[in-house]
């Protein structure tokens, strides 16, 4: 009974994966002119990047503040120097929090928006209208979103890392859990530049996953307003799962490079 159910789930998963890969393959056939894509990528970059700055700043600032306070309360020991608190905040922020937590927030904001937009276009026959004009709707609509996301999300992660560490610094100053001098000293201590590269590799992968999965969910929407809502929810859920799975795989592959 359970074996049958597992086989069915596995088969459905493989079917969806195959459909997803074919969908991605469609992005590169019957392309439009380069100039068309440039305009679309600029528009999409504003939508996915610039419009996400506010939420990313808010989340990152609090992420840094909370990390600083909690790390400080967990490392109260005469054997641990205060700058270590800042070192922990920096490492957590760069390696994990800035790319991953920002990606989850990004999936919630941008992923649902992408799925909702494409899903609505699908059910109101706007996608069909593109196809009848002889335009590859998949390539025209989705490729610029993926490219924009892959370009803009790493920039958001860089900003998130900076704001988070700076948020931690302000928290240190205002709460006194650690002095400003110790914080500055701590974030410079034993710095490994690969942490930044690691964060950016994650950002590129997560940016791709969110845009591609959300577009896929939106593109295969059928029905009405209810189904568009469901597609948006599924896009966020699937993107979050993909982000966490991707995070684990990347950590497994790249963590060895972090050791000095």
């Amino acid at each position: 009974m359970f074996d049958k159910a597992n086989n069915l789930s596995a088969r459905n998963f493989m079917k969806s994966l195959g459909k997803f890969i074919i969908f991605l393959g469609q992005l590169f056939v019957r392309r439009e002119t380069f100039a068309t894509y440039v305009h679309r990528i600029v528009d999409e970059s504003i939508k996915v990047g610039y419009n996400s700055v506010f939420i990313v700043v808010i989340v990152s600032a609090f992420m840094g503040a909370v990390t600083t306070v909690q790390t400080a309360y967990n490392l109260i020991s005469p054997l641990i120097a205060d700058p270590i608190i800042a070192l922990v905040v920096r490492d957590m922020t760069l390696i994990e929090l800035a790319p991953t937590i920002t990606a989850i927030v990004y999936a919630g904001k941008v992923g649902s928006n992408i799925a909702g937009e494409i899903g609505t276009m699908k059910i109101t026959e706007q996608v069909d209208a593109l196809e009848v004009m002889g335009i590859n709707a998949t390539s025209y609509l989705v490729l610029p979103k993926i490219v924009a996301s892959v370009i803009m999300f790493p920039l958001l992660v860089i900003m998130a890392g900076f704001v988070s560490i700076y948020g931690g610094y302000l928290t240190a100053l205002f709460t006194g859990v650690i002095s400003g001098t110790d914080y500055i000293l701590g974030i410079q201590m034993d710095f490994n530049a690969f942490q930044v590269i690691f964060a950016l590799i994650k950002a590129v992968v997560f940016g791709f996953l969110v845009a591609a999965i959300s577009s896929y969910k939106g593109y295969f929407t059928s029905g009405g307003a209810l189904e568009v809502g469901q597609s948006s929810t599924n896009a966020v859920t699937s993107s979050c799962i993909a982000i966490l799975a991707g995070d684990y795989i990347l950590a497994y592959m790249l963590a060895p490079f972090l050791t000095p």
Partner: protein
Amino acid sequence: MIEVSNISKSFDGKQILYNISVEFEKNKTNMIIGASGTGKSVLLKCIVGLILPDEGKIEFNGRSFANASKELQTEVRREMGMLFQGGALFDSLTVEQNVMFPLNVLTKQSMDEKLDRVNFCLERVGLENANHKMPSEISGGMKKRVGIARAIVTKPNYLFCDEPNSGLDPQTSIKIDNLIKDITDEYEMTTVVVSHDMNSVLEIGDIVNFMHEGRLLWTGPSDDIGNSDVQELNEFVFAGRLMKMVKGK
């Protein structure tokens, strides 16, 4: 001319179209009529390539389309204009940008040329002052007219209309119908209109194709539609009270 030969289509084991063969003539308004759920829209979507038929052949002026390469399909599609049931205007673009959209993507005209053409088409459909309105700011009838303007902006050889007057009041419906008819004559297009509105059929239909339960049951000039001996067609045509009164007289 568009030639459809032996088209069949099923979804999840349910047969929707049964071996349909029909010709749509140039410079004529070819109607596909029938009750809801008879496969009219599926047939239209097969013709324009949005749905791949299970069997059969579709030819546009002798060029095979249904199973052609993507490149040939794109070439043929660029000679098509289509008016969708809900207009299918792009929500994020103004009326002017919607109509200009095919020109932006499919041609290399200068901005002045494109604007001239867009203004001409908007004027042609009676929307001179709607350039900067968003689709959400205009009525259903205006959306249909913008849809027609967008469909004809590239001077297509084939025009397809899916329920062009659904959801419109009778007066606006007649305006849209007449616009389709005039444009067909003006551009010498092959026009295919899917409808279940008998007013439309009588107003603009040159050739009428009647579908029932996925089968093409009758084809003929619209003037002969009341004289058919096909029972299903008679039931469809004279279902409304007005048509019954006409028949009585």
